[in-house]
């Protein structure tokens, strides 16, 4: 897998894709037939629960069973400066020189910056490049982060003892997006309590009793539970069911991006079409808002470029 200059080319291509440049778009088009093979694992949860440490430990196990792995670690951009501090690599140093592992940090660049779109595209490029597993780490705090994790085929929501006010205070919707719930820091005496709080919260759900075997107690620190989790995730990712799931996900993600791009093109055009006639007609009471809007819509669609 990707050594030497190939890795550099990949890294540069990811920048083009991340920035949605024409070269990035062209690359994704070229790779399209090969995209959709990789297992995409989303790892999310509150800050400090050990997501990066868990990713590091899972990567170690996945490497042990011979899989190549790319990690995409997203951290929030500062709304004031637009900069970002991307610190997830700190926990992943042990894989730094392994040619079968590629780690890329991304700044979320705020809601308007196309977070989910370009993160998904970065994963696409890594997938098309041939990595067998792509792990996406995001902080589970806002809606944008929850949306981006939907780009993953299998979502792990990570919790740990001592984070904030417990299960009740979690971002709403966070527990619901999980395929697996991981209580990390099993080496911490508080982990049992977190585990039972979580089970309580999940038991209230309709499928409550079926999910016990998708709750995992692990320690990224001492390794407990990690290899079982990694092997389970990998084995559930092979076979026709998984491949159908992957096809669905790819189509769904492409549809979302297509609609977003079309809406972008449309609103650019709409902005450029003169609306004075419609405004006057509204002011004179000669049309309703709906009919004026229809007239503007027709003009926009007929306008060139």
């Amino acid at each position, binding site marked *: 897998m990707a050594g030497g200059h190939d890795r550099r080319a990949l*890294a540069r291509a990811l920048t083009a894709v991340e920035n949605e440049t024409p070269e990035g778009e062209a690359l994704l088009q070229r790779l399209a037939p090969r995209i959709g093979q990789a297992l995409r694992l989303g790892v999310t949860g509150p800050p400090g629960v050990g997501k990066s440490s868990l990713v590091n430990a899972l990567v170690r196990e996945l490497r042990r069973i011979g899989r190549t792995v790319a990690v995409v670690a997203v951290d929030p951009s500062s709304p004031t400066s*637009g*900069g970002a501090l*991307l610190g997830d690599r700190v926990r992943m*140093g042990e894989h730094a020189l392994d040619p079968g592992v590629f*780690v890329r940090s991304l700044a979320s660049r705020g809601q308007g910056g196309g977070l989910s779109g370009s993160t998904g595209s970065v994963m696409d490029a890594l997938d098309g490049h041939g990595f067998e597993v792509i792990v996406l780490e995001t902080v589970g705090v806002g809606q944008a982060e929850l949306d981006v994790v939907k780009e993953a085929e299998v979502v792990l929501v990570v919790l740990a003892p001592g984070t904030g006010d417990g299960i009740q205070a979690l971002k709403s919707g966070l527990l619901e997006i999980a395929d697996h719930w991981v209580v990390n820091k099993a080496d911490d005496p508080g982990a049992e309590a977190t585990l039972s709080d979580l089970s309580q919260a999940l038991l209230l759900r309709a499928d409550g009793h079926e999910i016990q075997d998708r709750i995992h107690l692990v320690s990224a620190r001492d390794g407990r539970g990690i290899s079982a989790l990694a092997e389970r995730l990998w084995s559930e990712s092979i076979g026709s069911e998984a491949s159908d799931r992957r096809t669905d996900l790819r189509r769904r993600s492409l549809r979302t991006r297509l609609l977003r791009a079309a809406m972008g093109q449309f609103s650019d055009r709409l902005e450029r079409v003169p609306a004075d006639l419609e405004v006057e007609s509204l002011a004179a009471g000669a049309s309703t808002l709906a009919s004026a809007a229809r007239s503007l819509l027709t003009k926009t669609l007929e306008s060139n470029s």
Partner: protein
Amino acid sequence: MTMRKIKVLVAKPGLDGHDRGAKVVAASLRDAGMEVVYTGLHQTPEMIVEAALEEDVDVVGLSVHSGAHLPLFRRVLTLLREKGMDDVLLTGGGIIPPSDRAALEAEGVGRLFGPGAKTSDLASYIRAEVAKRRPAPQS
């Protein structure tokens, strides 16, 4: 198309044991609007350059307080060149005597900043250098 931010890798090579200085620098570059990848303590030059490659950064900033600045900066510079990453700015700071600083700068390392330097100077230096190396519009 999103405007391309300046991306910087801040690393702490060598064996000395605390990274408060490097973290302050990383946070100040973030506050200056840059995307800063922080890799933590005890990084070897090989790890640093591989991370810089994977992250496709514009700048590598090393914080060196161990006295081993000469071999560390030289090794990182050599590895960057070996990987064809000549366009990446290598800069940094720490306790580096002026004569060593001059020697490294003559070999192709960028400006090096002493312990008393203002972080805002580092940010403006990086901005100016990246603008020279990368003609596209900057943020």
